[in-house]
């Protein structure tokens, strides 16, 4: 029996482009353009795509760090975008985020211990007397040592900072964590440490993740289900195993074949996409991928393919799938 934790229906997020002396809206960057999916409780859902595909915007809109333009976001059946500021604030501990950049995500002037514990205090979830104990416990879980409590962020390496960011989210006892490219800024040997930490935490605390990444191999390792995005739209979504063994969308296939594999003996038939990613301010007509698609036909230029379920739990938006 799986319980749905997050339900996203036809979510749209446009960022207005202003121009001229009067700062009138002259266009929209369609960062997220009608995306629907759900995340089950206890699973880890991966979102992959290249820069500008809107994956980070979705993460932030789910937590209402951005306002949405249209559509629905339900957290345990409740529309958090309709909440008042005060009600939203009281909800915050339940859903947390881990950021990509371990440097800018920590305030350089606040000691690590305080940074991890301050939100607990601010929400009145723990008494000032007990906060240090709680922080130290959480730090230990995240692989940080007690003596680091009184240190400033600049004394830590990228990997350790990411642990601090995870501890800061974890201490709130969240049910849902958005991990926005948490390992992309880290070195390979450190990446593995953080990925293992995240998966250990998930198992122990029954957390639900939205794991955002551009790296398919990391997503494959960590996620149960994966959605592939291109220019603000979901092009394919399936269980991890299904997606990686039977990718249907030509973009998913290209993405998989573009990843360099550390095996020099491997000779692959590579799909190299032509051209660049179009700007989300001015996406192509019809299927947004048709400008780069190796199998594009006339219909792709005219009609936007329907996002449909082709096999159980396997959704794809392509005329030829």
């Amino acid at each position: 029996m799986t319980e749905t934790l997050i339900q996203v229906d036809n979510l749209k997020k446009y960022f207005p482009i202003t121009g001229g002396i009067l700062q009138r809206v002259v266009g929209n960057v369609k960062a997220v353009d009608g995306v629907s999916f759900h995340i089950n409780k206890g699973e880890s859902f991966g979102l992959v795509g290249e820069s500008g595909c809107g994956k980070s915007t979705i993460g932030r809109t789910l937590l209402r760090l951005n306002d949405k333009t249209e559509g629905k976001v339900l957290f345990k059946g409740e529309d958090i975008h309709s909440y008042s500021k005060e009600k939203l604030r009281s909800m915050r501990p339940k859903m947390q985020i881990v950021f990509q950049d371990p440097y800018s995500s920590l305030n350089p002037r606040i000691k690590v211990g305080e940074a991890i514990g301050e939100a607990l205090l601010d929400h009145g979830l723990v008494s000032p007397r007990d906060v240090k104990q709680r922080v130290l416990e959480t730090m230990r879980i995240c692989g940080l040592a007690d003596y680091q409590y009184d240190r400033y962020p600049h004394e830590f390496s990228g990997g350790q900072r990411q642990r601090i960011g995870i501890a800061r989210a974890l201490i709130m006892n969240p049910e849902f964590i958005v991990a926005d490219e948490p390992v992309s800024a880290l070195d390979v040997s450190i990446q593995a440490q953080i990925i293992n930490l995240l998966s250990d935490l998930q198992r122990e605390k029954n957390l639900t993740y939205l794991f955002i990444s551009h790296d398919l191999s990391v997503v494959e390792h960590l996620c149960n289900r994966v959605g592939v995005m291109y220019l603000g739209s979901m092009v394919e979504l399936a269980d991890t195993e299904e997606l990686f063994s039977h990718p249907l969308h030509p973009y998913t296939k290209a993405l998989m074949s573009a990843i360099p594999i550390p095996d020099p003996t491997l000779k692959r038939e590579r799909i190299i996409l032509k051209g660049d990613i179009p700007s989300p301010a001015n996406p192509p007509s019809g299927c947004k991928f048709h400008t780069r698609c190796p199998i594009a036909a006339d219909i792709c230029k005219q009609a936007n393919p329907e996002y449909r379920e082709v096999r159980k739990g396997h959704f794809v938006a392509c005329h030829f799938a």
Partner: protein
Amino acid sequence: MSIEQTAPITKTPKAQKVASPWRSAIRKFAKNKLALLGLIIMIIMILICSFGPLFSPYNIYDYDYTVKNKAPNASHWLGTDKFGRDILLRTMLAGRISLMVGLVSTAIAVVIGATLGAVSGFYRGWTDTITMRMADIFLALPTLPILITMGAILSDLKVDPSKRIYFLMLMIGVLSWVSLARLVRGQILTLREQEFMQATEALGLRDRRKIFRHLMPNTIPIIIVSATLLVAGAILFESALSFLGIGVVPPTPSWGNMITAANSLIDFRKRPWIWIPPGMCILITVTAINLIGDGLRDALDPKMKK
């Protein structure tokens, strides 16, 4: 290429002291010889002006016509003016006034500027628009003519010379908050976009905590730096106005009105001891403050390189 790229900061031994951003700034400042020199000069200047007059055998209202216009000598180290007043004593007392005007008007400017800048940067929207348009208006006002006009009005209203300096402080302060407000606003706008501010939102921290614990401490460095430079500006302003006779007016001494002596050809050519000491004081003080300001800027570099 910087060292930071090649040198990741890694675990430090347990025994090491906690290197707070402030402490490393102080360490960096202490390494800057020119800034340190400026600081020492300023300390000496403040000490002399504060405590020097206590050791002087003279009184500033001693009009002793028997010793008027005397060149520096054993009893009057810097000579006397046309009323026979001791120049050294007057320079020290003038220093108190000038430094006071500099500090107080800067304090006023900082309070107004930092508050308005922080509010408009944090809340944005119409709050920001109103504040910044107001700032534009203040910036468009020609400062010197306004101060001159205000000075003339004060003279017209026959304001007591000893009270005048308070008006002067207020006026200089009110006219110089703009640059600071813009800096603070800009800084806060940049900080807002940093992920750690998004984190405070995701953690659901209260606005109060976001502003006072997260944003403000990160703007203090630029406030300190620009306030330091504002002090120098305010001292120059006061001197200019007093020189023109509309700032601090005699008998209250200020460096600016003491130099007025140079206006008279005979004092200018024959009695340099009357106007050189206050002039030198202005020059030295303003230079020293600027050196400190530059040193602080380097030390408090927001990137906080080690």
